[in-house]
């Protein structure tokens, strides 16, 4: 046995157990889910089978496709919203705040909300946007409106706002980390070569930040597509997302096979979208320094 073989053997000896364990947890559950999607619903719960009825149901009943499309649409809007708010914030913290201590404080301030319960944070938007809420009271106090308005809550925009807020730290952190890594002398070099602040931003800072932006979009997207709290709390009647449908199928409707099939379709769609972002990220990957 030569050295290479031995080192290979050692490698397997050490890593096979954790690899098995990891594979069992990650792929085991997925395999069960995949298998179940071919089962059949039958009183009292379901029976093992191999048929495509669940998938046919998904693709023929436009309701499911509509929900899936809405989920992707809302998630993308959330990403754009979180980006529009998060990027300038991250940029300011990284580039405009001179004091290291203040920068640290602001950085922590973006993180602190993550420590608070997810549901609580989603719920807080209800108190802001509701008819008895902070926003309405404020507008009334200003005298802009007479009666509280109901338009702020229970629609898709309230949902985008709420999920966008929940996703903000996930959007900001990769962007901040990337911006912070950009050597400051590149910015100086750009200005030295005659570029003003705006040109420097669009030619140097933004392109160098693309990996962070893609990372932020990916993380925010992953969180947004799986959200089922915001649709319930602030979403209104026709804003069900795919996670709500799943909740119904596995819960009240007790149709596990259909739920599993929806999960599989969802998985395929999202893995496809994420592989796109992964490709883009690799393309944008840069050797700085």
């Amino acid at each position: 046995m030569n050295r290479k073989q031995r080192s290979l053997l050692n490698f397997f000896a050490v890593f096979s157990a954790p690899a098995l364990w990891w594979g069992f947890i990650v792929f085991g559950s997925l395999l069960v889910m995949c298998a179940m999607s071919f089962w059949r619903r039958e009183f009292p719960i379901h029976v093992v089978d191999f048929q495509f009825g669940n998938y046919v149901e998904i693709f023929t009943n436009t309701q499911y496709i509509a929900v899936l499309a809405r989920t992707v649409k809302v998630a993308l809007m959330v990403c754009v919203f979180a980006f529009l708010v998060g990027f300038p914030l991250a940029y300011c913290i990284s580039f405009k705040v001179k004091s290291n201590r203040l920068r640290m404080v602001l950085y922590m301030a973006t993180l602190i909300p993550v420590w608070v319960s997810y549901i609580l944070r989603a719920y807080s938007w209800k108190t802001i946007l509701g008819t008895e809420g902070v926003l309405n009271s404020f507008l009334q106090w200003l005298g802009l409106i007479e009666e509280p308005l109901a338009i702020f809550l229970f629609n898709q925009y309230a949902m985008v706002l709420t999920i966008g807020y929940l996703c903000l730290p996930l959007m900001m952190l990769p962007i901040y980390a990337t911006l912070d890594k950009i050597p400051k002398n590149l910015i100086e070099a750009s200005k030295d070569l005659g570029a003003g602040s705006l040109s420097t931003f669009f030619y140097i800072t933004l392109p160098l930040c693309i990996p962070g932006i893609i990372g932020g979009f990916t993380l925010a997207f992953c969180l947004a597509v799986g959200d089922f709290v915001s649709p319930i709390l602030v979403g209104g009647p026709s804003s069900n997302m795919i996670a709500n449908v799943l909740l119904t199928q596995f819960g009240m409707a007790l149709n596990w096979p259909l739920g599993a099939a929806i999960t599989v379709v969802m998985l395929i769609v999202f893995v496809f979208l994420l592989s796109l972002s992964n490709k883009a990220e690799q393309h944008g990957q840069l050797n700085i320094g």
Partner: protein
Amino acid sequence: MIIELRNLSKSFKDVVAVDDVSLGVERGEFLTMLGPSGCGKTTTLRMVGGFEHPDRGSIILDGEDITDKPPYERPLNVMFQDFALFPHMTVSANIGYGLRFGKSRTRNADKVVRDALAMIHLEDKANQKPHQLSIGQRQRVALARALVRQPKVLLLDEPLSALDAKLRDSMQIELKHLQRETGLTFVMVTHDQSEAMVMSDRIIVMKAGRIVQIGTPDDLYDKPINPYVADFFGASNLVVGTVDEPEAEFDVIRYGEARFQVNRNGVQHRPGNQVTIAIRPERIRVLTANMPPIAGHQNEFNGTVTEQLFHGNAAHLVVDVGGDKPITIHQLLHSAGSRRELPEAGSNITMVLESTAIVVFPDDSTKTLP
């Protein structure tokens, strides 16, 4: 004068980085600011480049006050320490970057970039990214990128510190030739005294935010104004001697058993005072029987060799002359085996030293001993 700095000062919080610095840079000269880290040289350069704003003072470039102008409005360019090439752009995009903006905006940018690539012999790397280049190639790209804008002055911030020793030597010569050929004014910052001496027309030695001495490399080496400068440039025997009664046209300094007659340089030394003197190790010669006579006034003195150190091209003799510290002598070895002819440890030798080769600092200079 192309650049004039008037009473520049800059502090960072409580630390004074640059303290009332005034200097002029002549058109077409290669000027170097030299000093250890934290001496204010880089801050001065950054103020000229526009990346720091001085607390006080002004910067005049070619007759125009540019103190309050942002970097992108200053007709000068910087070659950054680690080159600061844009990692997401190709080599030609990097070089052409500066041609997109302001007065340097040109229609034939492509041609300018091609010419620049030819100048630095990197035509075949035009479409590669900086990280695919060697360090030396990156440096040439950084140089080309700064030069295509035809700046009035090129500022170089430790341009050679990223290179290995061999490459650095050849780049020193290349940069110097380039500066001569283009006639462009170069202002360089470095902490490497040999680099400064090889490349510069004039050197500014800085310490703690202030200018210690300005002069040509020869001036600084042969006539340092204080022990700090003497110690900074090359090796020096810096010892504290005692002033004796003057003899004829010479002042006399005693160090251990040795008595040195030194030329008067206008400074009055009172007998009995302690003074610091600097003697270059290569200026001392060991007296041997068959040595040809030497012109000029010579000081002869005796000592005991305590050690002989072999450095390949030279041997160093450590000689005790009865003072606090031994004196070091550098002897170039002109032929193989000539080291064996040098006196060995333990032998008593007689040495000669020209009176002009001894630098005597003013009486209070013992306080500024490095």
